């Protein structure tokens, strides 16, 4: 037997080895004094480290990576301001149940609480926007903590997990058990569906003549797409989807009524207000889809499947709730329900589709809707679409139909401006063979556009569709409609020359402002795959998004067209 001593490794090396063992291929981040040992350990690793230009960008990239794969994305930041720059990304991931692990360097344990250089209470400041978090004080805890962090981030209802790593812990010699198992006495296993409640659901469904299935992010996470399809086709029920669930059920399917909510399709919202039963499969009845809770489907039976018991009766009190994984519960429910007599209901909804289709009116100059619709037609929707937040996000949701899961990346719950472009970068790293669009507005794009450098250096063929109306358009729309058009703090006149800006980063750029030139310009952009390209679309300034349900109103108060 060899008498060679066991290999000595540091805490930082344990972290990197754990990442390797957990199957991590990409880490997005930024170095600093407190995470130097981690970068030193990464030097010897095959993990692709992506140097971003800002920690917020790193976190959104890891989030986009998670959204496009369903597996945890990983971001790495240093202590103090490096870590605080990840907070927006953590909130974004927490609100949308995205698997994300953020590793942060921290000052040495002996300096904690002494206002050391670049010290911040990262554990404390991230508490409200994480699923769980760790401040690791003992190097020998690292293998277990890393295992737990990834398990928690990706299982049950996913979410972000922070692991704060003091520098002395990163440097300390590891003498613990590298195979240490998770120790989570408070871990809640995903509950199994209650058979009696499923039977109750089946009974209520069988009495329905105007049912509506509402699929949400929970259906996406659990991989319930096929189960939803089989169920909807069997019982012949129409399906509406939330913003985040675009792609769980194909939006081109005859039973789909598309997205519901504040800027959903007129026919989806009419279905909501007229259905006799609404069945949420992994949607938490967010206020942007439910509008006024007191007036939400007052006469309809409400059914709800959710994996998170805390979502039960939170804002809506359904008639029956099953706490379980969406796919498993739906598969169990499937044999219990037969085809429903929904012919008349489906015909009514088809009538609404004919009478109130999504439409935009050509006007003077270029319309953002035309650009998005053209992107959809040219790719036949076979692309990953990331969006920022605002008017362009809603138009993208309306006109870029999504048929595949994990192909629509948009900040829903948090509504984070600056999310779209870095999320598209993360998605392109995860899915190098896919066409990836970043639909962004001129407001949000300027919050994280420094990541043009990241995209350019890695020659990522992300197509940045910049819809520039020189306004913070959604806020302007609200001021126009609800504040007597007293426009305040929304004018972005004086925007930079975006083409010159992109070119300064070495990014190919196109500009278009005439409707008849959109198709050719987009074809050129789609054919360019030597790196990122930016299509600067100078669109009409004062266009509004319709249909619209004003905040706090009911679905029957939907505004279909400008008055």
């Amino acid at each position, binding site marked *: 037997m060899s008498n060679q001593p066991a290999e000595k490794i540091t805490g930082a090396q344990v972290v990197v080895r754990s990442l390797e063992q957990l199957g991590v291929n990409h880490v997005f981040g930024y170095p600093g004094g407190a995470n130097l040992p981690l970068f030193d350990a990464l030097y010897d690793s095959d993990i692709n480290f992506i140097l971003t230009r800002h920690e917020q960008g790193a976190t959104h990239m890891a989030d986009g990576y998670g959204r496009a794969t369903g597996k945890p994305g990983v971001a790495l930041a240093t202590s103090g301001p490096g870590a605080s720059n990840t907070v927006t990304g953590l909130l974004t991931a927490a609100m949308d149940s995205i698997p994300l692990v953020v590793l942060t360097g921290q000052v040495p344990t002996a300096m904690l609480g002494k206002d050391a250089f670049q010290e911040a209470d990262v*554990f*404390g400041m991230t*508490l*409200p926007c994480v*699923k*769980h*978090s760790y*401040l690791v004080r003992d190097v020998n805890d690292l293998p277990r903590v890393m295992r737990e962090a990834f398990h*928690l981030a990706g299982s049950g209802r996913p979410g972000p997990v922070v692991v704060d790593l003091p520098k002395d812990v990163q440097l300390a010699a590891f003498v613990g058990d590298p195979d240490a198992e998770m120790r*989570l*006495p*408070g*871990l*809640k296993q995903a509950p199994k569906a209650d058979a009696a409640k499923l039977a109750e659901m089946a009974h209520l469904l069988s009495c329905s003549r105007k049912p509506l299935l509402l699929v949400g992010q929970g259906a996406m996470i659990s991989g319930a797409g096929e189960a939803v399809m089989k169920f909807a086709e069997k019982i012949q029920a129409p399906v509406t989807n939330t913003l985040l669930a675009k792609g769980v059920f194909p939006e081109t399917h005859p039973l789909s009524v598309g997205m519901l909510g504040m800027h959903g399709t007129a026919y989806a919202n009419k279905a909501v207000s007229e259905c006799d039963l609404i069945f949420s499969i992994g949607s938490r009845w967010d206020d942007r889809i439910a509008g006024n809770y007191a007036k939400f489907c007052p006469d309809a039976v409400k059914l709800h499947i959710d994996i*998170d*018991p*805390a979502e*039960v*009766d*939170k804002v809506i009190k359904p008639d029956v709730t099953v706490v379980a994984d969406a796919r498993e519960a739906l598969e169990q429910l499937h044999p219990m329900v037969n085809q429903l007599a929904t012919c008349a209901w489906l015909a009514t909804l088809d009538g609404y589709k004919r009478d109130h289709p999504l439409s935009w009116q050509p006007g003077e100059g270029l319309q953002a809707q035309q650009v998005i619709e053209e992107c959809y037609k040219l790719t036949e929707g076979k692309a990953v679409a990331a969006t920022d937040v605002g008017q362009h996000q809603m138009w993208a949701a309306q006109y870029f139909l999504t048929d595949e899961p994990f192909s629509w990346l948009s900040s829903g719950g948090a509504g984070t401006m600056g999310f779209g472009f870095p999320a598209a970068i993360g998605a392109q790293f995860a899915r190098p063979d896919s066409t990836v669009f970043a639909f962004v507005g001129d407001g949000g794009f300027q919050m994280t556009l420094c990541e043009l450098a990241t995209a350019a250096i890695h020659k990522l063929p992300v197509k940045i569709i910049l819809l520039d109306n020189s306004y913070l358009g959604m806020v302007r729309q609200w001021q126009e409609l609800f504040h007597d058009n007293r426009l305040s703090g929304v004018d972005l006149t004086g925007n930079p020359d975006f083409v010159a800006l992109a070119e300064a980063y070495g990014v190919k750029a196109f500009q278009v402002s005439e409707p008849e030139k959109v198709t050719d310009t987009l074809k050129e952009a789609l054919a360019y795959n030597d790196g990122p390209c930016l299509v600067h679309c100078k669109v009409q300034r004062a266009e509004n998004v319709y249909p619209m349900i004003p905040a706090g109103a009911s679905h029957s108060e939907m505004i279909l067209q400008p008055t």
Partner: protein
Amino acid sequence: MHHSMHLVLDHQPGVQLRIAMILTRRGYYMESMNMFPMAGSDLQRMTMTIRGPEAGFDQICKQLHKLVDVVRVDPLFAEVEVPEPVSREEFEVERAV
């Protein structure tokens, strides 16, 4: 409205902070709290009385149970006896002693 509950916690650093955060965000106050170790385990028993709206109590229990470090939440639905608040005069007397 006062509510009491027993909790079983995995006694990890910050667990009280997480609990306080759940309460504060939803407008509840912690009126009293006791913690003691459970023999033969790493777990802690906590008994807590909180004050806040009746309507949200069920949601508070669910949100607390959702915390990774919270193993169990057992709400006590019986009316809770809350000691009379100490008056300013009594406080002054106690302080003088």
